[in-house]
């Protein structure tokens, strides 16, 4: 797998490569080379199965990490392709022409993270939510507990503890260190 990535480095600008376990490895590719790289993987290196398209909100670096997980049925290897895009203009090329189910994943990302995939069929329709008028819920800066306490009718009497302090006070009531 390492060798394959190394010789692909000549054509595409690939960054950090990690061999996670014996069946899985991840590689970072720049945004403009992402879709050609995935197309190459699918057509030439027969990574023919798209397992997952998902995103991670790296709010500290002000980035979205989009991860495409491809599977190769010959090598029995999973390859996760990481693409970092700017969090302020979240737009990514669509890959719905490569796999049919990619359109659904992109629809979900549009709804949950607000990442736009121009040209992907039905990307603007809401998939899970209905009449959602807040910021996309899966972003880190969306506080669901605040939203719940404002929107729904929480029943009185529910106490929530930080389990660490709760257990410490329960087990060692005398010493109040830390």
């Amino acid at each position, binding site marked *: 797998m390492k060798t394959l990535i190394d010789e692909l480095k000549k054509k595409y600008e690939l960054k950090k490569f990690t061999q996670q376990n014996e069946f899985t490895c991840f590689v970072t590719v720049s945004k403009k080379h992402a879709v050609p790289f995935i197309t190459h993987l699918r057509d030439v290196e027969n990574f023919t199965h798209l397992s997952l398209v998902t995103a991670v909100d790296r709010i500290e670096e002000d980035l979205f990490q989009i*991860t495409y997980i491809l599977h190769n049925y010959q090598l029995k290897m999973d390859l996760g392709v990481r693409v970092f895009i700017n969090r302020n203009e979240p737009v990514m090329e669509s890959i719905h022409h490569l796999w049919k*189910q990619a359109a659904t994943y992109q629809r979900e990302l549009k709804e949950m993270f607000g990442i736009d995939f121009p040209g992907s069929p039905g990307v603007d329709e809401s998939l899970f939510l209905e009449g959602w008028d807040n910021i996309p819920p899966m972003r880190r800066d969306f506080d669901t507990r605040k939203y719940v306490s404002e929107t729904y009718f929480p029943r009185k009497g529910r106490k929530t503890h930080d389990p660490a302090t709760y257990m410490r006070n329960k087990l060692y009531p005398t010493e109040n260190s830390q």
Partner: protein
Amino acid sequence: MINTDRSKYPKKIDGKPEIDLDSGKYLKIWQGPQHPGVTGNMALELTICGDEVVECKTHVGYLHRGFEKLMEQRKFIQNFPIVCRICVPEPDTNEYLYATAIEELGGIKVPERALWIRTLNLELSRLGSFLMQVGGQAGAFGMGTVTQWSITHRDYILDLFEEMTGGRVYHMYMLPGGVRAPLPEGFEDRVEAVLKKTEKILSDIEKVLLNNAVFKGRAMGLGIITPDMVDKYGVVGPNARAAGLKRDVRIDTPYEKYGELDLKYITGTKSDAYERTLVRFQEMFQSISIIRQIMKKMPEKGPFYVKTPNVLYWKIPAGETYKKAEATRGEYGYYVVTDGSDKPRRVCVRGPSYTHAIALLQDLIVNVDIADVPGLMTSLHTCPPEIER
């Protein structure tokens, strides 16, 4: 056999049928969410012409609970009770995948005996879920008898789970570091008794259902998945195997103890609804044999749980991984990202029904008689909770 000749109407305009609801030729029907024929709580927006579906749109999200958001604000150990709620008929796959992903990222080595117990748990849950699916398949074609039989026998497997884990539907058994409890005394005998019962009822169902002329007449040629569609749509599991492709996560990338067990690809050729039912039938017999092998090789004593760091302060170094396992519906995956804090940064669940129920079903359902829509859905074994999380 379904007549696939729709030459007259609707006229295809660059691939998409142009449908004029005012013409009176077409009728728009919402099948679900309140409909006994749909699996779980989802909706199909069907446009039918006569008795045939010309266009379909899947609507999901009726079960969306925002699991991935909830997991981001709970500690690692607090997540382990809620992951099993993601998929109702088969929760163990979720527990296993979450636990093993956390173990890999946290660098924990699980003892041998726990691996065996986990494998047993996974395989039992597969068997139960398959039984439920066959019941649903028969019920969708109007054969209530088989539904009653198979779901009753699934209940015996739930009894085994109750004895093993204390939970009937949601087990919360495989936590990071091992399993919660060892097997109870004399468990093998009771497993063997349940397996005997199951084998008996399976042979009965085979007589009543699979050799039934009416069932054959309806299921054969329904919803054919050609092998070239498999990669295009990301079809996995029995649906892909029924198309003749050798794809089984347990064999391709063996996890837990599946590498040491004797199991083989179960493939069909035609990949219509009937073929998929057949494949699932043989899967059931195989998992019965697998469970027998596991009970033979099950180590009697030894640690079943390795001590983790104090779970309340457990911080896992930054990393990401993708773990997958073979559920009854196919490849079930967990993509976990940690950032060095005591909560996961991102947990993404890949349910196999995600592609089956939306992308695949919308295209398979065209030209299908409206009477066969529930049968087609069930033969794809769609499970809404894992789509929506």
